[in-house]
């Protein structure tokens, strides 16, 4: 890497940082295994092309080295190919190769691709062009007979209606007998009801019911939380049962909350989207990845959701702190942040973009206003300007630098290591913090120091 200081900057721009490469890993084990392979030792015949291919031979335990090639130029994200038997995508060899490449030119020089890498790239390019021509946005929604699809939708709506009615009955029974009884009844009661909602094809209702089951064991104040959630579930049931009388926007919100699929048919917004945060939550069935984007031109904040089967990483991965030019389309429904990522025009690149921030009072008000459109909202995305992390007894809060007001952090945020990164970054001085602001408090997800510098990931 001798001599690559400032003139190397442009190359570094395209090259991803090690953190960003590691963010592509499907799980922690791959991250660790990949970072160990991100050094020159096991590699030979490494190279990269102007077209965005990176390749190399990695010495494994067998006699033949593994052939690893990555297409990094594809705007839909990197694609990987490796001759190793691993089923993980990307495998540790692909991660190691990208780390090596992230390290600099000396380890992965520009070169002529070997035949095996060239063939795979050519195959990909061919398929991509074919696919691009076939799937222009908006064309061919669904398949088959529209009449049959309509009948299917009607049958499903009837089932959900039956489910919602049954759920209303169960809630009424619960309130008649008292929530105190729910504490004794335990989890089984809720699991059974949740299963009924799954049968009713209302996964949104099922998930809410399941969460009700966890509340009685969630510590002091549980009756208040349980009543709140029961009431909101009742409100959702009533919303569904009376959806004909609701405005269209709110109907769409209710449909989404109940768990009906919808498509991102909002207008495509082309913008420079800064990746604010990416984090996964997992339960026994599903891994959910949430990616927050901020559009520099539109000023919009959008949420991308991506799912993976239990124990597997969701497909979509974007490097936090970088920005890409792309189209993003909103899902229907009032007060919804969810959007889908459409065509990408540039790979993610370093950026000086930072979202503008507000005070804590404004952030709390913003959550309150958002409830007008969607009363079931847990939180809204907010950037706080000039706030300082301050300890408050056993918990922490984010206090306005100039005012005497503060937002408490959510209980979940206290348990994350990101809290300490935020405190360390601040050092008692004001920082800019992006996160989710809701009735439980604020969950910090990314922060920027007072001086220029990239976003620091907190999740």
């Amino acid at each position, binding site marked *: *890497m001798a001599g690559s*200081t400032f003139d190397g900057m442009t190359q570094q721009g395209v090259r991803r*940082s*090690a*953190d960003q490469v590691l963010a592509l890993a499907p799980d922690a084990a791959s991250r*660790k295994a990949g*970072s*160990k392979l*991100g*050094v*020159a*030792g*096991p590699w030979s015949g490494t190279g990269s092309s102007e077209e965005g291919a990176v390749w190399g031979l990695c*010495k494994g*335990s067998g006699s033949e080295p593994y052939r690893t090639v990555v297409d990094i130029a594809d705007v839909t994200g990197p694609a990987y190919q490796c001759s190793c038997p691993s089923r993980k995508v990307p495998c540790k060899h692909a991660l190691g190769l990208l780390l090596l490449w*992230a*390290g*600099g030119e000396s380890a992965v020089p520009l070169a002529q691709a070997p035949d095996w890498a060239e063939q795979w790239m050519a195959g990909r390019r061919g398929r991509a062009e074919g696919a691009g021509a076939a799937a222009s946005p908006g064309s061919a929604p669904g398949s088959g007979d529209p009449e049959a699809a309509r009948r299917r939708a009607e049958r499903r709506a009837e089932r959900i209606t039956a489910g919602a009615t049954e759920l209303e009955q169960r*809630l*009424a029974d*619960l*309130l*008649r*007998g*008292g*929530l*105190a009884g729910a504490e004794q009844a335990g989890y089984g009661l809720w699991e059974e009801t949740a299963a009924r909602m799954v049968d009713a094809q209302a996964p949104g209702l099922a998930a809410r019911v399941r969460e009700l089951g966890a509340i009685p064991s969630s510590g002091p104040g549980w*009756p*208040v939380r*349980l*009543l709140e959630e029961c*009431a909101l579930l*009742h*409100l959702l049931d009533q919303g569904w049962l009376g959806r004909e009388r609701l405005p269209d926007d709110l109907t769409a919100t209710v449909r989404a909350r109940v768990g009906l699929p919808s498509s991102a048919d909002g207008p495509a917004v082309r913008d420079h989207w800064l990746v604010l945060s990416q984090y996964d939550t997992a339960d026994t069935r599903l891994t959910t990845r949430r990616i927050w984007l901020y559009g520099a031109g539109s000023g919009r904040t959008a949420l991308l959701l991506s799912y993976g089967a239990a124990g597997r990483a969701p497909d979509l991965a974007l490097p936090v702190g970088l920005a890409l030019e792309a189209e993003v389309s909103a899902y229907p429904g009032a007060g919804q942040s969810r959007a889908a990522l459409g065509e990408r025009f540039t790979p993610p690149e370093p950026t000086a973009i930072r979202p503008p921030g507000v005070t*804590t*009072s404004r*952030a*709390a008000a913003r*959550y*309150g206003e958002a409830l007008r459109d969607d*009363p079931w909202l847990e939180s809204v995305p907010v950037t706080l300007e000039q706030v*300082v992390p*301050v300890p*408050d007894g056993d918990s922490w*809060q984010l206090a*306005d630098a100039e*005012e*005497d*007001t*503060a*937002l408490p952090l959510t209980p979940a945020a206290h348990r994350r*290591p990101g809290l*300490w990164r935020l405190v*360390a*970054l601040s*050092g*008692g*001085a004001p920082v800019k913090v992006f996160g989710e602001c809701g*009735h439980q*408090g604020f969950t910090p997800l990314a922060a920027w120091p007072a001086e220029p510098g990239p976003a620091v990931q907190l999740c």
Partner: protein
Amino acid sequence: MTTPTSADVPVTGIWEELVTSALLGTDRRTPPGCAPGRAAPTALLDTAAVETVRRRAGLRPARSAERLERAPEDPRPPLPAAAARRLTMLLADRPGTAGGGRRGTAPDLMELLPQWLAAANARGFAAPPQTLPALLDAARGRTDLRPAALTFAGPRALWLARLNPDWRFALRAAPGGGAALPRPEDTDRVRQLWEEGLFAERVALLAALRARDAVGARELLASTWSTERAEDRLMFLDSLRTGLEPEDEPFLEQALADRSRNVRATAAELLSALPGSALAARMAARALTCVAVDRTGTAPMITVEAPHECDAGMERDGVIPKPPAGRGERSWWLGQLVESAPLGTWPARLGGRTPEEIVALPVADDWQGELHAAWCRAAVRQRDAAWARALLGSPTAPEAGGPGAVSLAERAKLLGTLDAGERAEWVAGFIATHGLSEAFQLLGMCAVPWAPSLGRAVVDALNIARDAGSYPWSFSGVMGLAERCLDPAEAGRLDGLLAIPDESEDASPGAGGYWAEAFQRLVTTLRLRAAMAEELRAG
């Protein structure tokens, strides 16, 4: 956040009524504003839904708690970007997350953190603030990392450590609990901290002062000596080891009369390290009567007459009268006398011979082991390179490899008195003759990165071990050291060792493959270390 107050008191009241009704059940308590009966639960849920959304929408920020004092400025320049990324990777490689078992070809990143920290500290870079939690966690798990990690982490880490009980260790490790020590010139504050500070603060103060102003530190200690507790006196006395000088003698002589035996022993040890001290002279006088050259035989020979008693004077000079179990008391006393006698007195006593000649003399009646071991301890204590060289002997001598008069542990200590170049040459010679099986402790004494001749000796010996057909894990200790200590510039010389050799008949099955793997890891680690050094130089 707080719920709406003042104007909303009635509303809050309704909510509490609702919660009570919900908890008890509408059959037992009719909720406010609802008719009792079948419709009551639904009416309660309706009202509760409105109230829930109302309560959430009305949330306001809380009053802020008391602000933290700002972290002190870190004036050091920031890390170069590539080095910062490297640090993140090294810190991400936590021990305990590995699957265990065979190590494979991948480098052990956590093992490289110490030298990364040393290099970053040598260049005076500041740690990126967001890495401080991981640095503190790493230092918490590994005490050997603490000094370098805390130096690198800098003042902000101490500020941070005060906020998290997991990181208390950082405050204990740092002088004065993180507060800056007063400068030696600031005598009032020094005096105040010495008289009022906590024990750890006082130890740190004394050590810092001693490093800059030996006399001032001794005088400070003497001023309160008689009022200190015995275990504190021991720790304070120990800090005089730094910058020990003849002027310390009166104070140390006085400490020889201390009530505590441990304090007396430490004072005697320090005095014996001052060859010009009265104690050293007394010990020399005693030792010299025990050892003589006998010229009556065909060749001159050393004879030893160990002391017959341990008198009060010897005891006062720190000789411990009672030997440990299994040792004769006379040889125990002899050892203590000889190790405390200045080495410079022996040539005159033993016929004007040089240290080499003295060590070469035969010793009568099996006293050689005892005598030479005592001289070794003296050479280490008095940091006498000439005697150390004589006692070490030639590294290629056949007896150097076996269990000779001087044990490996003693040899390692003797090597410490030589300069780095001489040390490396001696160990290189030792390995070239005796191989690696006994070399681990000696290698640990050598300066990092290893001198070229030493590095080559190690690589050659590994190569020989491989050709001999043994498994590499018999040498895992030396391999691990080589990964951390071999000069990265040597990586190119190892290329020939990376291939899997043809298996010879007497080799252990599969050994060739494991060796290739071990050498790959070695080369990979060396390349990684070279890259790390380069990244830090970029700043």
